[in-house]
């Protein structure tokens, strides 16, 4: 009996130790591919990840999502001179150094765009298009295609090498045969093997690829009403088409060889997957640019009003009907540990904060180019966005300006400081509220300017000037005093660029126009407010060397068929 009891006790103790079967484990954070398939509404969540990609932090101090890249583009021009270089996170663009393939501009831009494209491709792969696909799902596809086109548009313009007028760079580009090359195309069908072997797509293929995505998106987004400004709807597609057609128009007008190249490849077997462009001249492109710009406007977008512009709590941080597309940051999007507390747009572009570097403590104030400011007419109500040198430091001039500061603090800001951007809800201390802003990516004003510029080409200079004059007098001048004095197309282009530089100060848009129109960047002149070490002028009629972005060396390291752009570091007069 005792033995029996002993055995029972032993067995009782032993039984728990007999457990042990390999159990299925699931991740504690995040989801595996299999779990994704079982989640409800995974297509919606994948689709939401696309605007989320606009918040990807880069390694450089100035790289906080897409806004950081936009700042890179602004500082490559002469748009936002900084007051004190000590806390300027964009010194590379100022001094023209560290622009090579191993440095942050090259290594942060590249994965930003391609991770965005990957997310678009995943959404496209997740939603099959059949006759049963719901309108909601078609909208996800349209949104993904639109963002993919957005990314490729940016890259095609940024990475294509354009003549700089400096022989050491231009002749190397010639020898390396990279003229006209953009970036590799990645779709939901690209395999890993292809990625290690393929080459940079030539411009004529890239334009058709982007246009095909936009054509499809236009179709799928028919009738779609979006719920937030970071989702793409048909008006955004029209806006992107307007931009793309304008790029092509300017390009084909300047170079008939490029036009011939585009037309001659129209019937290529290899490019048959893309829609044909169907153009025969540069003016065909300009016509389409104006047409789509007008379509974008007619979908319910209008320029920012004076009241919206000069609102110290909602000005340029809250999306409205003037904004076609925006980056929208919510407090909860700012994950801890990613340095959002000091790496953010508001902390760099608005002086009304204590959490960034553009403030009274760290003094990295952003100003407007002094030469540009002097050309702003008195009748243009946008002028009081920046502090007039005659008013700087004088508390009695305080009331002319829209700012969250009190007079005494405002008087400490230097001349030319921009007061365009504001923290959300006037919150200057808590970055979680103040930096959680909307950032414009495309606004209706750009559409008006594209329309005016395009008209000048296919309807004649007078028509273009008329369109520009009407637009500015209606929407930007209180007294109807604007007059366009351009006598040549080049002069008119300069005027359009000037208006864009004023309108889109701090938004990263004019980089594309500088490159498209091959305009020089002028920082050195009498009375310049650019920091001493940044004062370089690039060559007239050529693109600034720093605006030809280098491919990331991580890409060229793993794909020997990709030839990089020449390194523009320290190339200046």
């Amino acid at each position: 009996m005792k033995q029996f009891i002993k055995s029972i006790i032993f067995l009782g103790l032993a039984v728990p130790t007999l457990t042990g079967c390999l159990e299925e484990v699931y991740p504690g954070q995040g989801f595996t591919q299999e779990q994704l398939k079982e989640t409800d509404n995974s297509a919606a969540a994948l689709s939401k990840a696309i605007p989320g990609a606009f918040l990807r932090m880069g390694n450089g101090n100035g790289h906080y999502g897409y806004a950081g890249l936009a700042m890179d583009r602004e500082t490559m021009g002469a748009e936002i001179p900084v007051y004190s270089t000590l806390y300027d996170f964009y010194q590379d663009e100022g001094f023209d150094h560290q622009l090579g393939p191993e440095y942050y501009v090259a290594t942060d831009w590249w994965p930003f765009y391609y991770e965005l494209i990957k997310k678009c491709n995943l959404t496209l792969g997740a939603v099959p298009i059949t006759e049963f696909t719901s309108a909601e799902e078609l909208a996800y596809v349209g949104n993904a295609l639109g963002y993919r086109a957005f990314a490729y548009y940016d890259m095609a313009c940024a990475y294509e090498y354009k003549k700089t007028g400096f022989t050491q760079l231009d002749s190397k580009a010639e020898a390396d045969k990279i003229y006209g090359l953009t970036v590799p195309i990645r779709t939901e069908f690209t395999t890993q093997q292809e990625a290690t072997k393929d080459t940079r797509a030539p411009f004529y293929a890239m334009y058709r690829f982007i246009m095909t995505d936009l054509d499809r998106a236009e179709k799928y987004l028919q009738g779609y009403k979006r719920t937030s400004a970071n989702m793409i709807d048909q008006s955004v597609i029209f806006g992107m088409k307007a931009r793309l057609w304008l790029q092509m128009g300017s390009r084909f007008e300047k170079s008939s060889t490029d036009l011939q190249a585009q037309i001659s490849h129209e019937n290529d077997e290899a490019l048959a997957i893309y829609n044909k462009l169907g153009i025969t001249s540069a003016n065909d492109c300009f016509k389409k640019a104006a047409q789509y710009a007008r379509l974008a406007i007619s979908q319910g977008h209008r320029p920012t009003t004076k009241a919206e512009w000069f609102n110290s709590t909602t000005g340029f941080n809250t999306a409205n009907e003037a904004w076609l597309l925006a980056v929208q940051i919510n407090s909860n999007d700012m994950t801890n540990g990613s340095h959002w507390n000091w790496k953010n747009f508001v902390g760099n572009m608005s002086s009304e904060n204590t959490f960034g570097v553009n403030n009274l403590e760290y003094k990295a104030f952003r100003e407007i180019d002094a030469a540009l400011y002097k050309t702003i007419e008195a009748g243009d109500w946008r002028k009081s966005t920046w502090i007039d040198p005659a008013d700087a430091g004088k508390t009695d001039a305080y009331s002319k300006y829209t700012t969250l500061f009190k007079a005494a603090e405002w008087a400490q800001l230097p001349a030319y400081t921009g007061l365009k951007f504001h923290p959300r809800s006037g919150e200057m201390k808590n970055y979680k509220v103040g930096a959680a802003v909307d950032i414009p990516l495309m606004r209706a004003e750009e559409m008006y300017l594209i329309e005016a510029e395009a008209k000048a080409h296919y309807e004649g200079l007078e028509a273009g000037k008329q369109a520009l004059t009407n637009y500015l007098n209606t929407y930007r001048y209180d007294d109807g005093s604007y007059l366009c004095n351009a006598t040549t197309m080049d002069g008119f282009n300069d005027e359009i660029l000037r208006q864009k530089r004023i309108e889109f100060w701090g938004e990263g848009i004019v980089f594309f126009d500088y490159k498209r129109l091959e305009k020089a960047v002028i920082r050195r002149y009498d009375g310049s407010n650019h920091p001493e070490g940044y004062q370089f002028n690039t060559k007239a009629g050529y693109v600034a060397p720093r605006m030809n972005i280098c491919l990331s060396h991580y890409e060229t390291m793993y794909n020997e068929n990709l030839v990089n752009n020449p390194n523009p570091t320290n190339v200046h007069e």
Partner: protein
Amino acid sequence: MYDYGNGAVNGVTREIFLNEAPLQDDRLNVSTNSSNSYGMQGYTDISFIEDLKLTLNVSIYNTENRDNDASNPYYGFDKTRGGQVGVSHYRTFAFNTQQLLNYSKAFGKHTVSALLGHEFTRNTSTTLTGRKNNIFAFKMNTELAGALSLVSTNSYKNFYNIEGFFFRGQYDYDNKLFASASFRRDGSSRFHPSHRWGNFWSFGGAWILTKEKWFKPTWMDMLKLKASFGQQGNDAIGDFYYSDFYNLSAVNGEGSLAFSNKGKRDITWETNTNMNLGFEFELFKQRLTGSVEYYQRKTTDMLLWFSVPPSLGYDGYYDNVGDMMNRGVELNLDADLIRTKAFTWAMNFNITHNHNNISYLPEQNKTLEKEGHAGYANSSRYVGEGLPINTWYIKKYAGVNEQGLGTWYYTDATTGDMKTTTDYSSADYYLGGSPHPDVYGGFGTSLRAYGFDLNVNFIYSLGGKAYDSGYEGMMRNPEPSIAPQAYHKDLLNAWSAENTNTTVPRFQYGDLNTSAFSDRFLVDASTLTFKSITLGYTFPAQLVKKLQLSSLRLFISCDNVAYWGKRKGFDPRTSLDGSVYDNSYSPMRTASAGISVKF
């Protein structure tokens, strides 16, 4: 009163480290960690049928950590957000159970034993974190409840399981011939269910020749021949690498699943197969003893990170990329040179030579070819067929040119010649050698005389190339975006019109490439370490007996006494793959003294 450099103290702002005063932070800020752990093991041995025994083992081990950090709201960078408090709690719970069935029987001169077993391990780790800004009363409450604005909270659990079945058999004849064989089947939760099981074999034998009657030589006291063959599995990568992985996050308040990692479904166990062949001997009445062993260790299905072009939207993934071979010879010798009653002197010496190379890579992982070796690049390393693992993939420095600028090599695409360029970005990558030593080992000696004993030991490693990051950092030229720092005195030898015979480029403010990553900073990783020295004295037996003790010994010793490397401050022993940083800790020199008493 500390100066934060922001002008508050005396109106003067400091150019670097604005708003920082580490000494003040050290006094005011809080950082605590409290932890506890416990472990329990239990077992039962149940002997039922004769010669058969069932053993059941169970063990649990639990560790917990609670961190609390708080930065003060009065000064410095955290002032604008009112200070910040963070609390985290971590727990790891490891559960392991084994069921073993043992059989052991002797039949005359034959002894046989067998073991059949099953083992299961489950590790669970949990994390809980919270962070808040705006501490209300810093001196009174630095927990989350004492702060006002929520920054973030998070919690998650991770699991890892392993299950294994195994068998082992052993046989020996008359204590002079030994043989054993075993088999193990393991499954790991780190792999996909259809690839998670691995099978591993091993067998071996030994033969003590000197015990054989026909073995004549009397000067050989012991000679044992041994051979073995065995396999083990390795699954030491993170979890869920077998599947594409998505992060859950909020985008403008709505749920989004953002692609984060690429997975490879068919990754499975990495297998290490070892083959050892050797003999142990004792000669001349145990005056000279030692062993010689030849080994071959083949790793198949090596789990390694495979890099891809980032235009795919990800950097790479874990894959069973290929096979690696380690082959080598090991020699161990111990000699008693003098052996008398009052005085003994012995020496020991060992040396190992290992040759490592990647023996096979599958076709899809061969994306490049360098110097005849197909493979792929992984940041600053090249994984190539026929090359050692972690071979350097690095730009080659070509010295300074006539203007004192640094130059690097590139290969002309048309002619194939190596040329030099002053543009670092257009220089090419080349193979830079292996970080592994050619030979390594140790030697030492011990003396014993009149109650004193002295033991001295050295360790050495010859060969291999390691990268001296500390030297690279101290040889760079100043530039606007880096803070002031210490510079190496070798910069005094920088090129100048009067000093043209040097490899150090001219000292130029703002030149970022003077100390760029290249083989200029690859250094021979040979080292000699004076590992330990111990001096002791054992009191004579008669004296000790009077104290009612059976033995008494005093000793002093020093460990990690010194080491010699190729450059002062460069310690390649801190890294296995040749990446040496100036902030890695060398083994600390410790000195100790003691008394050993036996009753």
